[in-house]
């Protein structure tokens, strides 16, 4: 009775509005306004005494003209794509392990997969610094002719990023796979399908939504990661996030910093959008939306 009376009422009831108000205010004042402000900063001339601010695309023009920026954008995309691919290649078997395993090791595996998420990214990045640096822990154990030389390269960045983001991929796949009933696989095997065929025709298509959302998550955070690329890539392997840091904090160039932030956001969102479209159309083909 009570429910119905309130549902008929078109407006939002006052208590509900009051309960939502704090979170909505937070979101409007400290999220929507700052984001709009950043977008405006990137297309307005800097504030200076006695001058009115004008519309300008100068900050974007700088990026388009300069090969250095293109190199950084290319490297950022490259790192995002490599990290996503590596997470799929190494994460899929882990998700299959979680799906098939019924031993007590399953819980242990899940714990080891998830618990690093609760340790600060900076600590894990620092762990990789100790491991990978030229006179680090791995090289201390390797003979002279096999020394690793990947510190301060893109490879080191990807190794660190995959470590941080692979749990998201595995969990996303795990969610999708958990909806696949084992009896379907048994039926297929019974009808003579090989393990490879079962994977290709049942597990892979049915886990595709999880795979796609895993890719979207990993790609978007790997593209915009900040700590790992700086600690493991060093100053000569700059990514977009590093340039934003440099322009905003070191050079105090707000307009350029804002423009780079907008570009990073656009680049990430467009790839996420494309991946989302691919995922959806494939799902539609298979009739499993």
């Amino acid at each position, binding site marked *: 009775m009570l429910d119905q009376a*309130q*549902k008929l009422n*078109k*407006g*939002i009831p006052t208590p*509900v509005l009051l*309960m*939502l108000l*704090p979170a*909505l205010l*937070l*979101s409007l004042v*400290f*999220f929507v306004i*700052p*984001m709009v*402000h*950043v977008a405006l900063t990137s297309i307005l001339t800097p504030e200076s005494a006695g001058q009115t601010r004008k519309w300008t695309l100068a900050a974007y023009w700088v990026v388009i003209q300069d090969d250095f920026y293109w190199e950084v954008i290319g490297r950022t995309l490259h790192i995002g794509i490599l990290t996503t691919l590596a997470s799929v290649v190494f994460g899929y078997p*882990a998700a299959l*392990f979680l799906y098939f395993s019924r031993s007590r*090791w399953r819980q242990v*595996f899940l*714990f*080891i*997969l*998830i*618990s*690093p*998420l*609760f*340790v*600060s*990214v*900076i*600590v*894990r*990045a*620092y*762990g990789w610094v*100790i491991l990978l640096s030229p006179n*680090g*822990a791995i090289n*201390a154990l390797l003979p002279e002719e096999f020394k690793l030389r990947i510190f301060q390269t893109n490879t080191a960045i990807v190794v660190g990023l995959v470590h941080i983001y*692979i749990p998201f991929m595995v*969990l996303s796949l*795990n969610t999708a796979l*958990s909806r696949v009933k084992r009896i379907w696989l048994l039926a297929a095997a019974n009808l003579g399908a090989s393990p490879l065929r079962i994977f290709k025709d049942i597990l892979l298509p049915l886990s595709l939504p999880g795979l796609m959302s895993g890719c979207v998550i990993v790609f*978007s955070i790997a593209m*915009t990661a*900040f700590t790992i690329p700086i*600690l493991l890539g060093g100053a000569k392997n700059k990514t977009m*996030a590093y340039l934003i*840091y440099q322009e*905003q*904090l070191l050079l105090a160039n707000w307009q350029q*910093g*804002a423009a780079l*932030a907008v570009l*990073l*956001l656009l680049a990430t969102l467009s790839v996420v959008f494309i991946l989302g479209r691919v995922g959806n159309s494939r799902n539609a083909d298979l009739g499993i939306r």
Partner: protein
Amino acid sequence: MNANYAFWTLMRRLYGLAFCVYMLLPLVIVLIVSFSADSFVQFPPESYGMRWYLSAMRNANFVGSFLFSFKIACAIAVVAGVLGLLSALALTRYAFRGRDAVIGLLTVPLALPHIVLAIALLQLFTIFAVPTSPYALFIGHLLITVPYVLRLTLTSLRGMDPQLERASQSLGATSWQTTRYVVLPNIAPGLLAGVVFSFLISFDEVTISLFTGLPGNTTLPAEIFHIASQGSDPIVTAVSGIMILLSAALVLLAEKTVGVLKMIANET
């Protein structure tokens, strides 16, 4: 056939082992090296001791930023918990137009790069001449933690039997009594998980803290970043060791009380 099966079993075990080693390696190495008593970071350490833990605890910068981080994380846990709970209750109690849009608006900061949020808050607070730390830092952490509390609480609320609330109301309980004695105990695990997450996310966050932190008013991860970006340093190793041990303690506690791991793995 049998040999084939044995081969795949071996491969599966090797893979599982390699994966676990990869996941744990950076944490284990930090813990091992943190108990070194050498004057610089090397592996394997030549001598062991608590030397660097002691000097970390005597270092005013680390102690100060640790306390700052701890205070911020506690405040975030409380405020994000309250905001998330209030909005989750409001959003499930009544179906109103635009409800999905509100949920979308409240959770979208989660999907945005921290660096973009950080730069946006930094510029806004600077214009209004409000010190970015602790204010912008706190707001930034709040934006990325409220969505977790909201989502986990919403999931718990949706999993609740609607009959319970109706039964309570038909027995004459007021709306407040129903919420307090029927709804809250039922959604406590989800809410608690959200609060623990919020604490850890705030305590661990680097990027927003780095952009908005001010000298003397910055978090421990930002402080670690400043030193670690110059290379490895034994005192940073010890501080990192402390952070790992703290996280481990909190995760084990949360796992024992509400089963956080299953909640993350979406398994029931």
